[in-house]
């Protein structure tokens, strides 16, 4: 058991740019993969958009967290089928924006590629994805957190525990992962969290 420190706060240019990129439109459908964040629902609704929540991390924990190795379990067809039935099962082109946070950090291929394909499928052409990738290759364990939007440029970070990332991806690898998308933009941060906006 690791003690859970109080929520921290960090600057996020990614959040700012994500909503800036959607600024001219209202009533957009925005998917949040945090799966139950009141702050995110509030913020998205305040921007005049329609928030939708989907707990990708919750589905990961539930489908791959029990028995055996978390990453090894991601190759188990039965578990993968359960995972696919729990999350990202939205109609094609459902969303104009997706807040993916650091969820992809805990997936290994081929499931990682499948999830990226699903994100591509459910995002409307021109839609945006916001993603975080940890970049410090020296660490063996990462805080497992939920991100809540505090305001236009800040998120609060509520730590739930600690976990091991699947793999650290370089900028080049991230570009390759999203090769089916139109554009990708990286944001420099002071900490070891890479912020990325991908345009479908």
């Amino acid at each position: 058991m690791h003690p859970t420190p109080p929520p921290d706060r960090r600057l996020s240019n990614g959040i700012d740019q994500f909503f800036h990129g959607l600024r001219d439109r209202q009533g957009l459908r925005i998917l949040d993969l945090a799966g139950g964040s009141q702050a995110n629902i509030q913020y998205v609704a305040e921007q005049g958009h329609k928030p939708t929540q989907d707990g990708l991390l919750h589905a990961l924990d539930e489908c791959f967290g029990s028995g055996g190795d978390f990453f090894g379990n991601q190759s188990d067809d039965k578990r993968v089928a359960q995972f696919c039935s729990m999350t990202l099962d939205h109609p094609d082109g459902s969303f104009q924006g997706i807040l993916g946070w650091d969820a992809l950090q805990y997936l290994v291929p081929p499931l990682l590629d499948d999830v990226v394909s699903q994100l591509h499928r459910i995002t409307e052409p021109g839609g945006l994805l916001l993603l975080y990738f940890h970049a410090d290759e020296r660490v063996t364990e990462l805080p497992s957190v939920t991100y809540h939007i505090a305001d236009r440029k800040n998120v609060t970070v509520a730590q739930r525990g600690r976990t091991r990332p699947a793999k650290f991806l370089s900028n080049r690898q991230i570009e390759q992962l999203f090769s089916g998308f139109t554009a990708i933009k990286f944001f420099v941060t002071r900490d070891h969290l890479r912020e990325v906006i991908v345009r479908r």
Partner: protein
Amino acid sequence: MGGNTFNVARLSSTMKGFRPDLSILPDRDFREEIASPMWNRRKEEDPAPRTMNPVPAPSDLSREGIPMSTLSSRGETSHTDTHRVASSAVIGKSVVIKGQIYSREDLVIDGEVEGSVEANENKIVVGPNGRVNAGVKAREVVVHGSIKGNVEAGEKIDIRREAKLVGDIKTQRIVIEDGAYFKGSVDIQRPEVAKAAAVAGGPGAAAAQQHAARVPVGGSIPVAGAPQQQTLNPDLKK
């Protein structure tokens, strides 16, 4: 339901001075949820000491073979306390109901329900053992257990820490505790729009619908725990 009627009468007649031991309920928040509207009010208004005459708590009733009970006074006694105490119907944790439920009083669901649940003017509490596979419509909804279905809460929905909700939500106010699982969309309705919808069919209904069409979904979001009047950041409106 004859046995049930008998027991309700017996229950009503023994309600005077009833202060149940809710500690047997498994979840602290749920205990408070059940206890607060019923017991706290009397404490303020009626300071006179009363004799203790313990009666089983709602969860005990289900164990005793009265899994679904209406804790309402039905005329057996006119004691005002009893009316206040007896404002919730309880579906016990061993009960499975398939079909449509309409309630004109607050409803606590700690069992399994499949179909639809409506308590338009009242509050529905899904207890920690409650599993609702149905559309839910109420004035206020509190979720400790799980709901799979769309929820329409006229005033407020409160999704607690251990809750799991899969379905779309339509409400004026939403509270989600950290740790709760929610999958679905949220449609925040402005109070005046919701009121107009409630009187749909009345003389102002058409005008209200036109007004609703003009109001963006998130125009003013009275999300609980946040300031009631929030203005949009002017920079974002540009």
